[in-house]
């Protein structure tokens, strides 16, 4: 086959791939999308909080038919030691707005819906098809893909690599590196089913209001890690993620950590009596700004998790994926409409759009956060949570000890564990990384 079959090929039907394919198809490009799963979403795992604003810019009336679980009115942050949690809750009736800002979703269902939208917009979607290799011409320009289906190279002007964090195509072609163990977290997750009314009652929700809990502390046994518990309509997504480098160093079993989180006295009553219907695992890019690879080249762009576009501090990934997919698609459509070739030079437009957006601005803001958490993980995930719990207990327990002695004990415990200098330097470094 020598003629070009499509204007663009999108590899992957996750958040970024669907956003890209939909946007290009809507602009009249001939788009082919390849997905290795039986259906879009069958390989994908997420918490999952979906940020409405990003989807709204792509499909303004998505609320009419998208499979949404609960809109979020409450967020809890917990710092945990083995028997307690110290928490901050934010709940506001303002989140009960006409067009809510955040929803929980179930990825397998959501991606299926998004993929249907791509087809309705005129895109060609081929599931059960794994792209196995990028095809390049003698100058090295990407001209299409090989797949595991019989047949020749499928050709197109440009390939959008939306293959997720563990994408093989781009790494095999040398366009970017395989993620390093310290730049990815392994998350394991279970789906706990409970009747809708039970969930509403346990979390203090009415109608389709929802609540999410994010938790850090001794549950990750000194590794950089986080636990989460998100309410869906009639299920609870419960999971735990830790850096792969941390797991390899400590040899902890991920499902043991998850079971520990589930059995914690603060979590156990929330899921009591539930029926578990799935156990899933997936990587999350955590390297941040410094881990972002080259994003475009002759005949290709990379979007979403494959490009490490993930904000680990705010637990945002799907919206960065949708935003980067949309911007890549807009850049490609613009180049196409001007009749220009998909060269590296012309595709740099995508990077320019990304740089101007919240995606790069947010990631740049937290560029020092990942390395800070690596070097000090034991303080941040073991020592401080225990100290905070002790401080809260000292503050609340009434047993005849004078308050001044309680306070002294709290201060002494902090200094003993971390030294004055250690505390000060942790605080300064945290402040700088956050700035």
């Amino acid at each position, binding site marked *: 086959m020598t003629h070009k079959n499509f204007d663009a090929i999108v590899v992957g039907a996750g958040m970024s791939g669907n956003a890209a394919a939909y946007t290009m198809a809507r602009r009249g490009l001939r788009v082919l999308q390849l997905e290795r799963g039986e259906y879009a979403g069958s390989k994908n795992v997420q918490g999952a909080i979906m940020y409405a604003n990003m989807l709204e810019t792509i499909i303004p009336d998505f609320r009419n038919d998208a499979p949404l679980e609960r809109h979020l009115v409450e967020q809890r942050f917990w710092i945990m030691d083995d028997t307690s949690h110290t928490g901050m809750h934010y709940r506001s009736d303002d989140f009960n707005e006409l067009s809510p800002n955040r929803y929980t979703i179930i990825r397998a269902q959501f991606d299926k819906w998004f993929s249907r939208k791509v087809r309705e917009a005129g895109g060609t979607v081929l599931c059960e098809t794994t792209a196995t290799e990028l095809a390049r011409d003698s100058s090295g320009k990407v001209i299409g893909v090989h797949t595991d289906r019989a047949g020749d190279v499928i050709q197109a002007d440009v390939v959008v690599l939306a293959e997720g964090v*563990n994408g093989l195509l781009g790494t095999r072609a040398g366009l970017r590196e395989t993620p390093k163990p310290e730049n990815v977290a392994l998350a394991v997750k279970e789906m706990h089913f409970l009747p809708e009314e039970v969930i509403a009652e346990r979390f203090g929700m009415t109608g389709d209001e929802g609540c999410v809990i994010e938790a850090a502390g001794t549950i990750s046994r000194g590794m950089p890690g986080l636990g989460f518990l998100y309410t869906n309509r009639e299920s609870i997504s419960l999971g735990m993620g830790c850096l792969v480098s941390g797991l390899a160093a400590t040899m902890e079993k*991920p499902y043991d950590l998850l079971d520990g989180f589930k*059995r914690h006295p603060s979590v156990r009553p929330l899921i009591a009596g539930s029926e578990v*219907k799935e*156990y899933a695992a997936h990587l999350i890019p955590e390297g941040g700004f410094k881990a972002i690879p080259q994003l475009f080249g002759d005949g290709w762009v990379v979007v979403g998790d494959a490009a490490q576009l993930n904000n680990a501090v705010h637990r945002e990934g799907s919206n960065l994926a949708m935003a980067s997919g949309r911007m890549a698609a807009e850049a490609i459509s613009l180049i196409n409409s001007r009749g220009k070739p998909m060269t590296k030079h012309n595709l740099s437009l995508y990077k320019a759009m990304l740089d101007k957006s919240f995606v790069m601005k947010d990631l740049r803001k937290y560029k020092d956060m990942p390395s800070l958490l690596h070097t000090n993980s034991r303080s941040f995930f073991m020592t401080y949570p225990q100290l905070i719990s002790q401080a809260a207990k000292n503050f609340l327990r009434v047993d005849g000890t004078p308050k001044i002695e309680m306070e002294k004990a709290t201060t002494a415990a902090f200094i003993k564990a971390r030294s004055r200098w250690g505390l000060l330097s942790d605080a300064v470094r945290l402040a700088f990384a956050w700035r």
Partner: protein
Amino acid sequence: MKTAIAERIEDKLYQNRYLVDPGRPHIKVRPHQSPSPNLLALTRVCPANCYELNESGQVEITPDGCMECGTCRVLCEASGYIEWNYPRGGFGILFKFG
């Protein structure tokens, strides 16, 4: 105490849907004398418990319960100890919820 009440990983995986591609394992361990530290770590770190140490001290894989997360790839592909591929289109794990 803790291990006594821990749930079995087999029971967890039993809830999942898979379409196994018989005779075509998508991940292979290359022959080795003794495992590298990262390869050995896979016997604990793989979330589906696919890796095991055999009697003669080598690491083996049975990828049937694999959830295609890529953790073993990130830890061991570069060193050449394992060969990692996706299963053929349509095969492997099929998440109902994800």
